């Protein structure tokens, strides 16, 4: 596996995906205790989905905890169309992430709303419970992942390095708001989501890229460079979920 050396700010002279695996390359059972999982969604080459793999309590089987959609927090066996990323954290810390995942699942029996709020505003770091009163309206699949690692003292990203107001993100937000409307989300919630249209977007592949860096929290430039490689790997290896 390559070792990062920085050649100027944000420029990586050596890149490698040494901790990114398809399920065929390495079965999910080889995660330490927690890892990230990412897939491309259908033919839409611009849309990815991300979640957290964690080892279950009873039989040691691997489950994926992810925010699938509005109030759809799921814990289920991962499909083989996901690639997984081993974050650069010691194995015992990975075990704490898995424990926190179990607590989140227990504390949020009704799921978590989907919105563009910053991770730090929506998930109570103590209990893992979604907290509507703290200013956050909900999370995306990606900010959910960020929130979990953040709460366990393992922030994946240097948040202040992420760009805001990217044009393609604006289109994505409109698309999501349209989906929320069509899926019958509460009008009050949609109104709140609209008010968050300036929120910074963390794309699934960028957070996967952050976790694939040798050090966290990762700078945006490093995560972005690896994100491109991860997307290419998803497409080249058939990691597409329909």
């Amino acid at each position, binding site marked *: 596996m390559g070792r990062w050396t920085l050649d100027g700010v944000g420029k990586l002279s050596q890149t490698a995906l040494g901790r990114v695996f398809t399920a065929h390359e390495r079965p999910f059972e080889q995660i330490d205790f927690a890892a990230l999982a990412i897939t491309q969604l259908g033919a839409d080459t611009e849309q990815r989905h991300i979640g957290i793999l964690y080892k279950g309590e009873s039989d040691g089987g691997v489950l994926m905890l992810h925010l699938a959609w509005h109030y759809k927090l799921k814990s289920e066996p991962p499909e083989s169309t996901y690639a997984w990323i081993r974050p650069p954290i010691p194995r015992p810390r990975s075990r704490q992430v898995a*424990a926190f995942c179990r607590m989140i699942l227990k504390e949020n029996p009704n799921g978590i709303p989907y919105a563009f709020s910053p991770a730090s505003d929506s998930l109570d770091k103590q209990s893992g419970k979604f907290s509507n009163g703290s200013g956050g309206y909900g999370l995306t699949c990606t900010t959910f992942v960020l929130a979990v690692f953040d*709460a366990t003292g393992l922030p994946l990203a240097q948040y202040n390095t992420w760009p805001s107001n990217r044009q393609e993100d604006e289109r994505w937000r409109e698309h999501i708001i349209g989906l929320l409307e069509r899926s019958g989300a509460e009008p009050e919630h949609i109104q709140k989501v609209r008010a968050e249209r300036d929120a910074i977007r963390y794309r699934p592949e960028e957070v996967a890229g952050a976790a694939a860096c040798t050090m966290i929290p990762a700078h945006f430039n490093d995560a972005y460079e690896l994100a491109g490689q991860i997307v290419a790997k998803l497409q080249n290896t058939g990691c597409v979920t329909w």
Partner: protein
Amino acid sequence: MNKNALMYNSGEELSGKQLYQRSFTNRLRGDVQPNIGRIQQAGAESYRESYLAGAQVCMEYRRAGIAGLPNDIKTDVLYFLVAEYKLSRHGWLIFHISSVTDSSPSPVKLRSISTPEAVRRTETFLDRARRLDNAGNTDAALDLLYENVNGKLSLGRFKDVDSVLETTEPMSLSVDLMLGLLTSTLPARTKLPSRSTFFQKSEAAIRDRNEWEDGLLTGLEN
């Protein structure tokens, strides 16, 4: 009847504070008062709780090696009917007493009480987590630890959690449980003055045991 009051001396109703005050002046003092401090440390939230738990049957039970949770407790001067027990970090404590009189039908010294129930050793949540961990059920141990710490912190019982950090010797825990305590207390670190020392002791213990690796405690500092 006021739910926060107790029947005392065959029908006299007293508030929690009155009970506490009376414990300083009446003849029951010798039985009750020495234990109030310990119960307050265990997290009693009211005078009434302190007074009730002041009967200290469970502490006495532990000291005497007697197990079991009796519904009626007789001392040489008091007669309690216990409605509910709760588990604290010091063991089982009387949480609710349905009646108290000072006319014990058959006066018996507290320490001489015995029960036929099977021995049930009281243990704190950390004792139990350690036991589970030692038995190879580390995930269950961590779940228990997170649930308990979160439960206490959610209720604002910072002193309780801080006391666990203050009195627990990291060397007696596995790395997983040390990290569990540090991770679950991370969001409340500014309200837990003993956490910083626990962190330092944990690092020393891990290094001592040659289990140290880079990044093991990164992000968990105070």
